[in-house]
């Protein structure tokens, strides 16, 4: 019997009386079987003593001689005993099996498996198992080879599995920069036959699926243009070569000059011409002089200009005497003093004047 402090029966026997727990049950069993335990103990002591004596006797030369003689004398008995043991093995095994078959259900019913398992210290049991050694002894390859992976996978609800996966968290845990940094993109692209790839793409169908208007509406063209160095772009253009390729005659033939001229404000353009400089510094002046020269016209111009000059002097005196604000005085009728001087006013005068009134463009 194990008499270690963790052993149990003696300690439990000496322990103070406890109303409950497994220790109380064991002490009761020891009290009930003290006779059997004493007999087993005595037999054990006798066996160890006999073993020691037999060892001491058998190890000697006399002992070995006696042993050989005893085996020769008991050979018939041995043969008979062997036959009996063989018959027992042949006949007793079925009987024992029958007995066990009939007894086992009753024993199983009698045994409280839960109580037995509750007595087992599973942690202690597992601590005693060297899991690595167990795993090392397993031929994983053979185990896997016996698994029907297809059948196993077909039983897996992949969609439900994917639904349970937090893809966002999964991606967040991935260091994409590090991943991409480790990828040799050039080598990857070298392995791709882009021509073959693009040849297999139905670009028309792809474009049909794209809302180009919406796409362009979302593009900030101004920001895009701001990023373009137009000067550098134009500097790289061979304008001469570009112009050489243009059929200017055909281009001009396609231009509706009437429509272009209809959009030109000729009056505004004429107003930008310095007519005085044109007459004074070109042959046009000589032409005007030859066509209009004459004492009469010169005298008339002088007469009119002198009259206007005298008017101006008189009105300046009168306005000063009356203390008038010259800027506040109306220069002329409202329909004639809007636009500036000395140019025809087609929208005003020519449209309203009856025949005979448009002979001298009334300056307005």
């Amino acid at each position, binding site marked *: 019997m194990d008499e270690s402090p963790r052993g149990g029966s003696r300690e439990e026997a000496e322990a103070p009386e406890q109303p409950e727990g497994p220790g109380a049950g064991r002490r009761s069993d020891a009290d009930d079987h003290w006779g059997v335990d004493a007999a087993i103990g005595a037999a054990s002591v006798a066996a160890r003593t006999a073993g020691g004596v037999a060892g001491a006797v058998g190890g000697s030369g006399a002992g070995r001689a006696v042993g050989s003689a005893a085996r020769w004398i008991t050979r018939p008995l041995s043969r008979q005993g062997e036959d009996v043991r063989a018959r027992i093995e042949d006949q007793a095994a079925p009987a024992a099996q029958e007995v066990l078959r009939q007894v086992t259900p009753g024993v199983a019913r009698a045994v409280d498996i839960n109580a037995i398992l509750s007595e087992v210290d599973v942690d202690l049991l597992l601590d005693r198992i060297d899991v690595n050694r167990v795993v090392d002894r397993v031929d994983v390859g053979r185990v896997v080879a016996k698994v029907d992976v297809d059948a196993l996978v077909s039983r897996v609800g992949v969609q439900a599995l994917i639904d349970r996966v937090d893809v966002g968290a999964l991606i967040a845990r991935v260091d994409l920069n590090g991943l991409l940094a480790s990828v040799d993109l050039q080598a990857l692209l070298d392995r791709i036959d882009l021509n073959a790839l693009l040849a297999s793409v139905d670009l028309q169908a792809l474009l049909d699926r794209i809302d180009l208007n919406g796409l362009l509406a979302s593009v900030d063209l101004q920001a895009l243009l701001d990023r373009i160095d137009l000067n550098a772009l134009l500097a790289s253009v061979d304008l001469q070569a570009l112009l050489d390729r243009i059929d200017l005659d055909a281009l001009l033939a396609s231009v509706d000059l009437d429509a272009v001229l209809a959009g030109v404000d000729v009056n505004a353009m004429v107003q930008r011409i310095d007519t*005085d400089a044109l007459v004074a510094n070109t042959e046009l002046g000589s032409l005007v002089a030859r066509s209009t020269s004459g004492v009469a016209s010169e005298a008339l111009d002088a007469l*009119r200009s002198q009259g206007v000059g005298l008017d101006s002097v008189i009105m300046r005196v009168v306005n000063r005497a009356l203390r008038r604000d010259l800027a506040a005085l109306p220069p002329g009728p409202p329909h004639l003093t809007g636009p500036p001087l000395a140019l025809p006013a087609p929208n005003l005068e020519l449209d309203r*004047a009856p025949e005979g009134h448009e002979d001298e463009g009334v300056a307005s």
Partner: protein
Amino acid sequence: MTATEPRGPTDAVSLQGHYAGPVTRLLGYVVDQSLVVALFAAGTALVVWGVSLVTSREVHWSVSAWVTAAAFVVWQFSYYAYPWAVSGRTPGMALVGIRVVTAEGDPAAPRHAALRAFALPLTFLTLGIGFLPILLGRHHRALHDLVGGTTVVYSWDARAARWRFLARQQDAGVAHPV
């Protein structure tokens, strides 16, 4: 004609369409009235000569002064009203470069011309007071202008005069700052 003071054809360019001043208008009126008298006299002389030619007798203008005055008034009315209605200017006004327009600057209609020609003698009947607004008024409108709803503005072809002036300067070899 308010802030600008013209000194010649080049400066007068900027005054086109502005109210005409008293000197120019007086000059035009003098020319017109001279023409009215001269043409009336020539007309009566022509009538007398025609009658003498037809009757082979010496004929003298011996009709009543009232008839003569009435004929003169009618003639003067026609002389002024018709040109104003047609072109806005009489020969005298055309000579000095002015024309009659409405108070707003539109071409004068026959109605305006007739009223103005009818009111012109009335302005004289006020002993000249009816002309004072030409000098003192903000819009330089005389009594007959107020009656006819008209005014007088500069309207000679200053652009052509300007070019003629420059051309003459160029022809004479005078460098003119443009």
